[in-house]
């Protein structure tokens, strides 16, 4: 990408770091270099390869954030969960909508941000019925002059960032087999990395590497099944705890892995020094675990691959034989974390299962795994073998009837849909949290291709304290919350933190909030018209000012769970969800982009 010289100079001049320290940090790690040279753009979902969602912009700070006000808004014309985040490349703001996946390009140099162009792809409505949880999209990735994103119906497109013309379009997934593609692609080493949703449809989960130039599929790696398809090659693949071959086949009943799930609907990170791409996999199918005895590798796991050829380097399973739908698709933040006083090259993730894992990102070994919300399904993670020490009374399955009091709920202590952020200044992680538990009644399920393959009834209720959600700052080196805020509803927005020491998040009842990154004090809030399930970003406009952008548009699981927020279909009337009866009093469906500044 092109970087404005003017912007670089300005950022360096505001830096408080001595030049020698800056130089050392640049030499030490590429990550630090990226942070030191804040270019004011937001070109990929997680801001940088390390997925920190941290911006070096500091005009908006804890002292002046109370002055934040909306300066621009735009209706996307779509009513569905507006997950994901906009991109800002040079002086253009890019927005991808939920199905039908319109791509808008706004000119930031002109008053009112008029459109440069919009791209309306050909996308099949049949994908609507193959989406487990609303027709969301998690955003685009900018690389090599192209905006690359996925259409819901199993296609990846690359659109010329300047002209809006389609450069290539590749079919990557088969909706007839239950695969849809709402995730945001990731680009590393000229590979566009993509994967499917469909853990609720019995897919045979995979990851693909496409050629950035042509869109051609260069490699396909399964997340489960035979080594040859998983791309687990002898000599290259070294899992931290497991030994032997065919792990991802032997840990399943015969051939069951062909419908065993393991979707890829979350976020990815890349460490250029180790040349490792990290991503999490979702739940095994079906939810009724008694149909699939075994660990079910590599579902509910994190995998590290070489982006060039897809070969698997290591894999670690957070939740073996997952019987609670604890997908591991949460963002994997790459950061240097002090563990027992020693700085480690770590991968930090807030798993749905309630444990915050700090892994050695070179090997996959668990360095620490404290709980970050109430956890009842397991007592702790055994660091010697990486496995959870289970509570036998919280294991589910069709023969076990209705198992009560499982925490967290399957929405996750942190939802993978709401990626966390990390500030190298405070050395804290910031994330939305859910405070919910569930009962889990599994039942036998039959797979019929293209229809749901689930087999469980799982009502939710509030955890300790009664509030359903919140937002917290977390110290991974101590495994403790530094501060938290309470929200009446589950919290489903991503986090943003800046060099101004301000953290941003949105709420399900439609507030967009700025809080002090050091203590959680509320600095500013604004009602954006519909519940927030998207992820805030910040950028420097062509006028040199810092802006913050967020989507409004309730959806994803919350559209399903709170069917009474629906207003667009007179033939679909639903009662309020038992555990959050008045959400519809505060929000309804919507679809808008908001921009704030001082």
């Amino acid at each position: 990408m092109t970087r404005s010289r003017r912007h670089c100079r300005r950022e360096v001049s505001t830096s408080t770091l001595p030049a020698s320290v800056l130089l050392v940090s640049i030499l030490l790690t590429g990550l630090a270099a990226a942070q030191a040279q804040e270019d004011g753009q937001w070109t990929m979902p997680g801001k940088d390869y390390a997925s920190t969602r941290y911006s070096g912009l500091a005009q908006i700070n804890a002292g002046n954030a109370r002055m934040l006000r909306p300066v621009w808004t735009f209706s996307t014309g779509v009513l569905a969960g507006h997950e994901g985040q906009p991109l800002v490349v040079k002086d253009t703001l890019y927005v991808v909508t939920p199905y039908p996946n319109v791509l808008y390009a706004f000119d930031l140099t002109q008053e009112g941000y008029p459109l440069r162009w919009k791209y309306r792809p050909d996308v099949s409505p049949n994908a609507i019925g193959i989406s487990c949880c609303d027709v969301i999209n998690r955003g685009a990735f900018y690389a090599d002059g192209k905006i690359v994103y996925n259409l819901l119906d199993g296609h990846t497109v690359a659109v010329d960032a300047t002209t809006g013309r389609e450069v290539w379009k590749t079919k990557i997934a088969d909706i007839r087999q239950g695969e849809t593609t709402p995730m945001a692609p990731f680009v590393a080493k000229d590979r566009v990395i993509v994967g499917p949703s469909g853990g609720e449809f019995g897919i045979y989960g995979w990851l693909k590497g496409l050629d950035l130039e042509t869109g051609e599929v260069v490699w396909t790696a399964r997340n489960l099944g035979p080594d040859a398809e998983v791309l687990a090659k002898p000599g290259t693949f070294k899992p931290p705890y497991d030994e032997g071959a065919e792990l991802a086949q032997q840990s399943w009943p015969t051939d069951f892995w062909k419908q065993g799930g393991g979707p890829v609907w979350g976020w990815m990170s890349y460490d250029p020094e180790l040349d490792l791409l990290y991503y999490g996999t979702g739940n095994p199918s079906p939810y009724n675990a008694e149909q699939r005895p075994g660990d079910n590798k590599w579902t509910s796991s994190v995998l590290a691959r070489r982006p060039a050829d897809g070969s698997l380097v290591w894999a670690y399973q957070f939740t073996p034989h997952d019987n609670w739908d604890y997908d591991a698709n949460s963002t994997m933040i790459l950061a240097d974390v002090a563990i027992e006083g020693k700085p480690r090259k770590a991968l930090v993730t807030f798993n749905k299962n309630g444990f915050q894992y700090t892994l050695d990102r070179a090997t996959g070994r668990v360095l620490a795994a404290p709980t970050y919300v109430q956890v009842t399904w397991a007592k702790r993670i055994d660091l010697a073998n990486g496995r959870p020490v289970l509570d036998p009374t919280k294991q589910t399955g069709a023969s076990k009837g209705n198992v009560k009091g499982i925490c967290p709920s399957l929405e996750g202590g942190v939802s993978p849909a709401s990626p966390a952020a990390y500030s190298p200044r405070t050395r804290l992680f910031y994330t939305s949290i859910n405070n919910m538990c569930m009962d889990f009644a599994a039942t036998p399920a039959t797979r019929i291709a293209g229809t749901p393959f689930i087999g469980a009834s799982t009502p939710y209720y509030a955890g300790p304290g009664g509030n359903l959600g919140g937002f917290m700052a977390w110290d991974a080196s101590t495994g403790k919350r530094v501060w938290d805020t309470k929200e009446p509803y589950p919290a489903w927005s991503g986090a943003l933190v800046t060099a101004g020491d301000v953290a941003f998040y949105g709420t399900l009842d439609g507030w967009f909030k700025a809080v002090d990154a050091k203590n959680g004090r509320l600095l500013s809030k604004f009602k954006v018209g519909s519940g927030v399930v998207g992820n805030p970003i910040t950028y420097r406009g062509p006028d040199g000012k810092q802006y913050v952008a967020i989507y409004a548009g309730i959806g994803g699981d919350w559209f399903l769970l709170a069917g009474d927020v629906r207003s667009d279909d007179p033939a679909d009337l639903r009662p309020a969800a038992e555990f959050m009866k008045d959400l519809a009093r505060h929000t309804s469906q919507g679809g808008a982009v908001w921009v704030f500044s001082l």
Partner: protein
Amino acid sequence: MQSRKTVSAALAAFAAFALIAVVACERDAGTAREAPGAPPAIRYEAHVSAGGVPPPAGELRNPYKGDKQRAETGAALFSQMNCDGCHGGGAPGWVGPSLADGSWRYGGAEDEIFHSIFYGRPKGMPAYGGVVGSDGIWMLVTYIQSLPAAAMARTQSWEAVAPEPAVAPQPTRESPPAQREDRAQSVEAMLQRYGCVACHAVDKKVIGPAFKDVQAVVQRILGSK
């Protein structure tokens, strides 16, 4: 994602059952089993007719209208065919719309519901005609029409006032009573009760082989001994 999945029967366990039952079933049922539920040649989807003149359409009648046993089988199918994965157990709505609120996107008359299931609908409803067969779809229709329309008021208030009376179920077009031959029901009822028809039909392959084909195999095996 949360779902409200209800029990899905272990179909395989009944395959052997069906092998034995099919002979009796065939003898009793004759050959016209699919006829009452065969889909029409013309799809009925126009709800506002230009000039007030409805287009000509084949007539569809639910042969099982009001049949409680068929409704029960339909309820089992609703789970076995994963309908509840999208509409929720009891069909209160999930990623797909509520089927229990008394209002309908594509019409709530029996032929309209039949169409929605058999051919699918453009906002995501898969076409189930190929996998369930018309007989099974009529049982689903019978089940769906047996659902009590939920007490869903069209006004949702958070103020302290008396709630609006629940919406009355929309009237559905009346169909003349279906004419069906009365025949021995024991085996057929068993096939329905255990959900065999979820995967098998008499004379064509659905998920599992046609009962006729199974019968032929059985007879060949028995004959070769």
